[in-house]
């Protein structure tokens, strides 16, 4: 037993030394970088007019590097499919009935959060905000509802829920495919339509993000399987 503890301490000491060396090396490397580097900011600024939005981060996320975002919507949906596939996740041990305070809080905050989400979505075109932030706020509203004891009804938890979950990725892919059919490139928006298309994708994306994140919080798959 003592031998084992000794080994453990020795292991940790060696590990700490190795990791300190790693940190020192990485720190040196970071400090050796030049103090001025424009990165891609000039190109982004130059092409911002054609991107359809004026917030550069939104432009990168949904236009210049929109393909990354498409795949990332896939990652989010995949996580949910994965969690559902595990099945049988234990419920919370004691589900104490939510008190009146929580109930009131939910009634008060949920509409407010939905408003905030809508605002963030709209403002994302030209100021900080956008689909992910809006989706996260929507998810917060959903989590609050779940905490207050609300559960999706059986009518909602089948096909309608699944449709809501895939809308974000679905619209994204549909827009991409439609552009290909119009003999443009994947996700190549014409500057005059870019703003509208981005907004369409963002609305669908934030809805799906919100519901996906709330569903991840709920954990296991709702009991009802969609039926034909």
């Amino acid at each position, binding site marked *: 037993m003592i031998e084992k503890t000794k080994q453990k*301490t020795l292991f940790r000491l060696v590990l*700490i030394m190795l990791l300190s060396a790693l940190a020192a090396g990485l720190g040196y490397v970071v400090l050796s970088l030049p103090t001025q580097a424009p990165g891609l900011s000039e190109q982004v600024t130059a092409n911002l007019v054609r991107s359809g939005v004026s917030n550069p981060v939104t432009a990168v996320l949904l236009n210049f590097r929109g393909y990354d975002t498409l795949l990332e919507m896939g990652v989010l949906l995949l996580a949910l499919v994965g969690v559902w596939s595990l099945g049988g996740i*234990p*419920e*919370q041990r004691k589900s104490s009935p939510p008190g009146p305070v929580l109930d009131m809080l939910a009634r008060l905050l949920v509409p407010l959060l939905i408003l905030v989400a809508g605002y963030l979505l709209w403002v994302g075109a030209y100021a*900080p905000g956008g689909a*992910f*932030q809006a989706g996260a*706020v929507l998810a917060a509203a959903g989590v609050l509802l779940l905490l207050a004891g609300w559960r999706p009804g059986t009518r909602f938890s089948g096909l309608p829920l699944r449709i809501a979950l895939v809308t974000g990725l679905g619209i994204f892919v549909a827009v991409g495919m439609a552009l290909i059919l119009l003999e443009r490139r994947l996700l190549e928006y014409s500057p005059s339509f870019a703003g509208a298309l981005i907004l369409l994708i963002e609305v669908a994306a934030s809805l799906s993000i919100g519901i996906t*994140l709330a569903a991840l919080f709920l954990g296991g798959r709702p009991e009802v399987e969609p039926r034909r």
Partner: protein
Amino acid sequence: MEEMTLLQWAFDGVLGFALLWLAWRALASPDLFKAIVLFIAFGLLMALAWVRLDAPDVALAEAAIGAGLTGALLLTALARLDLKNETETVHKEDNTPQSP
């Protein structure tokens, strides 16, 4: 870039140190609940750091997703963990004093 004032230096220093300290405490504190709460606090300070680095979009995403929803996920997972067999073990787990 703008001239650095002493106050800004102090702010950056304190924030950087607080980030490292909170991360260390979140990873080393023996109580898992406390660890998660510290991790949420860490996420909120990260959001502050993003604001300081002129990244408001990232700050919003971090506050909502990184701190808020991740925290909710962690807490509900902890509530669902069957701690009957682990109550002692979880506390014992980190008995050994740590230095990172």
